C-alpha cells in the first residue's frame, strides 16, 4: 500500500510539472490561468494521498481549504481577463 501511494505521489508530481510547463510557455494569459486552475485541483488530490500515507486527517482539511481558495482565485482571474472589476 505504501509503495503504491509513493508511486501515486510521483505521478501527481509529473502532472504538476506538465502544468508548470504550460504556465511558463503559455502564449496567452488565459493559457496560464487555465494551467493555474488545473494545478490547484491536482494539489487537492496530492493532499488526499498525503493524508492516506501519513494517516493524519488534517491534510484533508488542507485539501478542502485549497479547493475553495483555488476556486475563488480562478474566478477572480477570469473576471480580470474579462476586463471588469470584481463587483460587476
Amino acid at each position, binding site marked *: 500500500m505504501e509503495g503504491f501511494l509513493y508511486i501515486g505521489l510521483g505521478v501527481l508530481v509529473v502532472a504538476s510539472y506538465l502544468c508548470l510547463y504550460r504556465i511558463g510557455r503559455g502564449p496567452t494569459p488565459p493559457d496560464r*490561468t487555465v494551467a493555474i*486552475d*488545473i494545478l490547484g485541483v491536482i494539489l487537492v488530490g496530492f493532499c488526499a494521498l498525503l493524508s492516506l500515507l501519513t494517516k493524519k486527517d488534517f491534510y484533508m482539511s488542507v485539501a478542502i481549504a485549497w479547493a475553495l481558495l483555488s476556486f475563488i482565485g480562478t474566478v477572480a482571474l477570469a473576471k480580470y481577463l474579462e476586463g471588469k472589476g470584481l463587483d460587476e
Partner: protein
Amino acid sequence: MSEYIGLALIAVGLVFDLFGCVGLVRLPDVYTRLQAATKCVTLGTCLILVGSCVCAGLGPTGAKALVCMLFVLVTSPTAAHALARGAYRSGVKLEPPVVVDKFADAQAESEEA
C-alpha cells in the same frame, strides 16, 4: 478488501489526472486545453478522493474526503465556465478548423434586436 477497491479507484484517478495534464500540454488552443484538462482532472481528483474515503473507512478522514469531493465537483466546472468566458471576452480567437461560433452569433442577434 475495501483497501484494494480504494486503491483501484485511486489508480484510475491518477491515470485520468496524468492524461488531463498531457492534454493541457499537447492541444493547440485555450478552449481545447480547457476542455481536456478540466474534464479529465475533475473526474480524476474526484476518483482519488472517493478512493481515499474507501481506504480510510468511516471517520474524520473519510467524511472530509467526501465533502472535498463535493466541493471539487461543484467548483471546478464553474471556474472553467468563467475562464472560457473570460478568455473569449479578452479576445482569444478560435483556431481555423472551428467553423461554428454560436456565442458570437447570439451576441450579434442581441445587438440587432
